[in-house]
């Protein structure tokens, strides 16, 4: 192989790489009922959304659903910077108000789907005998919460502690405000903390089953968020996006949500 051939091969390789990068940017977002749609979804919806995506794609051959997960702020940042997503499924409907104000959401497309219910998760066998929100404020209890700005469940925790008047007592017991919710269960199962406030669906996942105990918070003391869905104003493929939104709010879609520990709004 002489140097001329090497040069030709190298140049072809570079052209292929550049062409590939160019094409991948161009070929997304065709405008038909088929093609690709991009969904931005709350990290807490991952288990249900992955299954919804698979069954939707099975029923609609030729349509690919790409899902980006993140906490509510990450989703907002993605909307703000990429301006390409078709559908958004945030972990809390209040998100939609902010996004609407910025003009990112098509107004009449927002629908509630399921509830996000905070519960108290404790170590297996409940060694510290925690039965209520009040117990989280007792001396010697180590509590982990989600970060109060970055995570939906962190925000809800503060709301519900305020409701029950336990905020000051519990806050003095908080050893960590974690920026990601999945850290909370890790801290619980590795024995770093005695209790954490997480959402019911996460606490009920197969991964957590048998490793932790779950204590329900009475409805009048609780702060419950609603997971919803909406179409973004950037959508290039409204047909497919609408179809997907209808599917995840249909009775078939709701049964998948329920399977993953979420309670539908209409029940």
């Amino acid at each position, binding site marked *: 192989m002489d140097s001329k051939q090497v040069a030709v091969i190298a140049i072809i390789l570079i052209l292929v790489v550049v062409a590939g990068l160019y094409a991948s940017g161009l070929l997304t977002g065709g405008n038909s009922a088929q093609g690709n749609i991009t969904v931005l979804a709350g990290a807490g919806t991952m288990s249900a959304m992955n299954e919804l995506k698979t069954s939707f794609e099975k029923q609609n051959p030729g349509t690919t659903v790409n899902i980006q997960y993140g906490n509510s702020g990450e989703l*907002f940042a993605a909307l*703000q910077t990429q301006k390409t997503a078709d559908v958004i499924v945030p972990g809390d409907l209040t998100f939609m108000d902010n996004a609407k104000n910025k003009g990112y959401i098509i107004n009449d497309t927002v629908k509630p789907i399921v509830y996000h219910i905070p519960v108290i998760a404790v170590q297996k066998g409940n060694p510290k005998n925690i039965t209520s929100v009040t117990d989280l404020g007792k001396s010697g209890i180590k509590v982990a919460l989600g970060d109060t700005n970055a995570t939906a469940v962190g925000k809800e925790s503060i709301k519900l502690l305020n409701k029950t008047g336990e905020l000051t007592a519990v806050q003095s017991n908080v050893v960590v405000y974690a920026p990601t919710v999945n850290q909370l269960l890790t801290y619980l199962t590795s024995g770093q903390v005695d209790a954490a406030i997480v959402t019911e669906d996460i606490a009920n996942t197969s991964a957590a089953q048998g490793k932790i105990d779950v204590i329900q918070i009475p409805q009048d003391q609780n702060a419950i968020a609603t997971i919803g869905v909406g179409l973004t104003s950037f959508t290039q493929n409204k047909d497919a996006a609408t179809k997907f939104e209808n599917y995840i709010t249909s009775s078939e879609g709701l049964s998948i949500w329920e399977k993953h520990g979420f309670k539908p709004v209409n029940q």
Partner: protein
Amino acid sequence: MKSKFEITFISISFIFTSFLFVIIGSIFLIPSPQGFIESLFSDEMLTALKLTLSTSILAVVLVMLVAVPTAYSISRYSFPLKSIVKSILDLPMAFPEIVLGIALLMLFGNNLFGNLLRSLGIDIVFTTTGIIVAQFFVAFPYAVKIIYSTFSYINPRYELVSRSLGYGEFETFKNITLPLAKNGIFASSVVTLARCIGTFAAVLLVGGGTYLKTETLPIAIYFNLSLGNIDMAITAGIILVLISFVAIFTLEKYSNENIKGMN
């Protein structure tokens, strides 16, 4: 006259280096100057910067104290299980940081070792101590690797001559080996520092990543990205790029000078 082969290879390196340059450079263009300044002097950023630098510098000192003897023993001595020791030292470089983070959590959890530390009043998880511990174990293998190759390049004969002139092991190490290995040790501390500053997943898990308390610069990026504070996130990113640049620049300059000095 350069050959076609040479020109091709140089072009490839130029094209892809310029890609990399554009990628890195693009983050400098995102924030508005005003947003950058505001973010830079915000409480959160200054706290994160101070925390990152203080924990990293401490971690580097500790890493060096352990890595120099470790690297020296595997380059000079033969001892039982040496090959296993070497493999274990290389392991953390191959697996993701988050694995190390989880392993540390389990170690300091509800078990004999964790409870022993707690009874001694040593808190590791959710503290700055935890951050240093995480940085230490992430960076330690890299430091050992660089210092090991430095020691391996030094001809043992210098040491033998020193010993034959009646100097003890420690004096020989102090007066002959260390001065010869000075550059390698310096280089490895720069790399170790950069590694400690950039450690994310392990520090997030062990330290907890609590706002203003155990929030290092990489965590500040993640945090603010998740809040939609693009300016804050990018500013933290820019600070990290600048720190890395200074570290790498120092390293290059220093090693070039030494090559000149040798020739």
